[in-house]
């Protein structure tokens, strides 16, 4: 599978390394060359230096031909904008977005975007482990807790 990852922070880099080790063809877009050290000395991924909201950069990374796009920067809004552009303009069917704000994640989930909220996932996993309950399918963790609902 050809995958484009936006952001080479901790989660983007981990994702890139795991995908590459499983034999997928990965291109990572990152604005700061410093961050690429997270990929090790001989990265097995294609690297495009640039801003993921720049259409030229997205094109250069080959989003038009990719099977999946994952927006993993630490900026929720950057991730949300890039993911929507890739989905709408480049017609990529599998698009996933990392969103740190659980309320914003829920709002965009309602608009049809696949948003992952790490804090909800971790909290759910911790609680299940704490009470010795079996782990559940991911979508059951990836929801907004009622208390935060607006």
């Amino acid at each position: 599978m050809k995958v484009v990852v936006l952001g080479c922070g901790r989660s983007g880099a981990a994702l890139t390394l795991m995908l590459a080790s499983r034999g997928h063809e990965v291109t990572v877009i990152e604005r700061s060359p410093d961050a690429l050290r997270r990929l090790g000395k001989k990265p097995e991924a294609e690297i495009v230096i640039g801003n993921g909201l720049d259409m030229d950069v997205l094109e250069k990374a080959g989003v038009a031909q990719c099977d999946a796009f994952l927006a993993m920067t630490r900026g929720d809004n950057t991730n949300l904008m890039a993911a929507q552009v890739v989905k709408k303009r480049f017609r990529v069917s599998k698009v996933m977005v990392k969103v740190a704000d659980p309320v914003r994640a829920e709002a965009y989930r309602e608009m049809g975007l696949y948003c992952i909220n790490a804090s909800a996932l971790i909290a759910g996993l911790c609680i299940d482990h704490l009470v010795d309950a079996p782990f559940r399918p991911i979508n059951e963790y990836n929801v907004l807790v009622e208390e935060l609902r607006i």
Partner: protein
Amino acid sequence: MYVIVVGGGNVGFQLTKRLIARGHEVLLLEKDPRQAVKLSETIGDQYILSGDGCELHVQKLAGFGRADVVVAATGEDEDNLVVSQLAKGKWNVERVVARVNDPEHESVFKDLGIDDTVSATRLIFNLIDQQLETDDVVPVGALHQGHVEVVEAVLSHRSPFVGKAVREISLPTDTFLVWLSRDGTGMTVSGETVFAGGDTVVAMVPVAQAEELRDALTSGT
């Protein structure tokens, strides 16, 4: 009218000041607490809310639900997009205006459901571009997101328009002659208005036809 402005940089600040002067109910959202304090001291803290305008609970506190207009005026396009999409999608705000910093993003915003964008870069670029093309025709302003030009020209005494009525001359499609000034006196223009040499003519024209209008108004010079 209740207007919420998101982003207390220069654009948001100047806009808020003017809206207050017009007598509107205005709230300016600024996410940097220090900048919010500075703004409060300048225009009064009843007009400022310190908080991230991209967060739904801040939006709720600000009263997005009853806003007539939301303006996303931050310096970051991705933030302006999210503010606009939430204002429209979650709060059903009637009118949402987004500032777009990268002109390339105007069409992106449109694709993502935000039609009402303003790009200062585009406006300034259009103005400079027009200024470079000719000095006889002065672009007074660019309207409708830079798609309409307002131009001003002085008719030469040898212009083919001199001595003719407006209805007799042919101008590019959708040109609108707004106003004419003769010997320091201004007048509105009708089909019967007859041009004289030295008249200053003000016209509105779609950008695509601007070149053609410019040529027409300066012929005979």
